[in-house]
């Protein structure tokens, strides 16, 4: 069954008609063209579909699009400001925190959320905060290094 929903994505307002069975992930990708969030497992294990919903990171594959009526959503496309990469994105590039890149948008969203709440996390805290994001390439070490570097870069800015 179809329903119309209004939502904000990366600060822009959209009105779209969705099927009730459609996930927020599918609406973002195939109705609105935000291809950053990816479907890996489709059941909340891999975190490749991680977006921010009303300020909280969530697996967009486990949210029906109709639930997001009135929500403010941020995808990885909304993380860079004015064409300038966010320090978390920059740190992933500089530290080789990605290989194939499929999981990276999800990791960026989770890492950014962590650093907003805890600007100076320990390695253990970083690993815990990223436990809902799976990467099949890097072995995580460089991802953890990237988040540590981002935390240092952000504390210099502040």
């Amino acid at each position, binding site marked *: *069954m179809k*329903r119309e929903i209004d939502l904000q994505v990366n600060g822009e307002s959209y009105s779209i008609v969705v099927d*009730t*069975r459609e*996930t927020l992930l599918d609406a973002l990708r195939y109705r609105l063209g935000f291809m950053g969030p990816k479907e890996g497992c*489709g*059941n*909340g*294990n891999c*975190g490749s579909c*991680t977006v921010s919903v009303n300020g*909280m*990171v*969530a*697996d967009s594959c*486990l*949210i*029906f699009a*109709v*639930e997001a*009526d009135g929500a403010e959503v941020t995808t990885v496309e909304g993380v860079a400001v004015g064409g300038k990469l966010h320090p978390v994105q920059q740190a992933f590039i500089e530290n080789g925190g990605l290989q194939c890149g499929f999981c990276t948008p999800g990791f960026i969203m*989770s890492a950014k*959320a*962590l650093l907003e709440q805890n600007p100076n996390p320990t390695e253990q805290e970083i*690993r*815990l*905060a990223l*436990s*809902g*994001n799976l990467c099949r390439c890097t072995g995580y070490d460089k991802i953890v290094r990237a988040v540590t570097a981002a935390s240092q870069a952000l504390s210099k800015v502040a």
Partner: protein
Amino acid sequence: MHEFAYAAPRSLPEAIDLLSRAEGEARPLAGGTDLITQMKENRKSPGLVVDVKRIPELNALSWDERQGLRIGAAVSCTRIATFAPVQERYPALAEACALVGSIQIQNRAALGGNFCNAAPSADAVPPVLSYGGTVLIAGPGGQRALAAEDFFVGPGQTVLGKGEILMEITIPTPPVHSGAAYLRFIPREEMDIAVAGVGSFVQLNANGTRCERARITLAAVAPTPVRAREAEDFLAGKPLDAATLTQAGELAAKAAKPISDVRSSAAYRVELVKVLTRRTLQKALERVS
């Protein structure tokens, strides 16, 4: 996934009305982290999904000394785990809510959903039972309250009847000289389903020499979360030395009726109950204030 109608009522009576009048299966939707995966796999195929996140009563979270902790059924694990009164007075609940899936999952998954999904392994449930919590159910016939442990009937099955909604979980303020803890065993550090879990609560006498009462709840070792009453009764009146805690673990294991499955043999689960009971009792004791 089968087609379904979706509604997001803004009041409890409206939600009850929708669920009561539905032909065929209707399901309340809170965080969706269980229901949506089950619908994707066609393990559940409700014709009507009623999103309860816009109902004020189900989103309320409050604490006061007299009424205790009141948790609306749609309140997320993250909100509970970061709520200051929970961190100060209900550490076993805070630690259990922080064990449910990932951060992404905790940000959505609701305590009420953990109850209604009725998985024997639900991590957030044992602390509620051990703290002596109650559940408040709203339905076409009005409201009814019952002990949290009486909510469960079997795996995936609860006492909820047609048109009924779990509205609120209430936990009394822990008495002085009490402490509680929850531990689960999984073969990795995060993101797994409990092989076994134990939530323990102890209340000591005024000078801290003896146990006044204990409540021990076991997860993932029976069709529902279960209290280990023989162990609880054994502890009442005793000084809680190491030998007594070990003995309590042995007795708690008698309440475990586990199955063997992909995660563990039944025999290993029984051993885990002994160890986790001893450790949670010890941790609860250390938290007695």
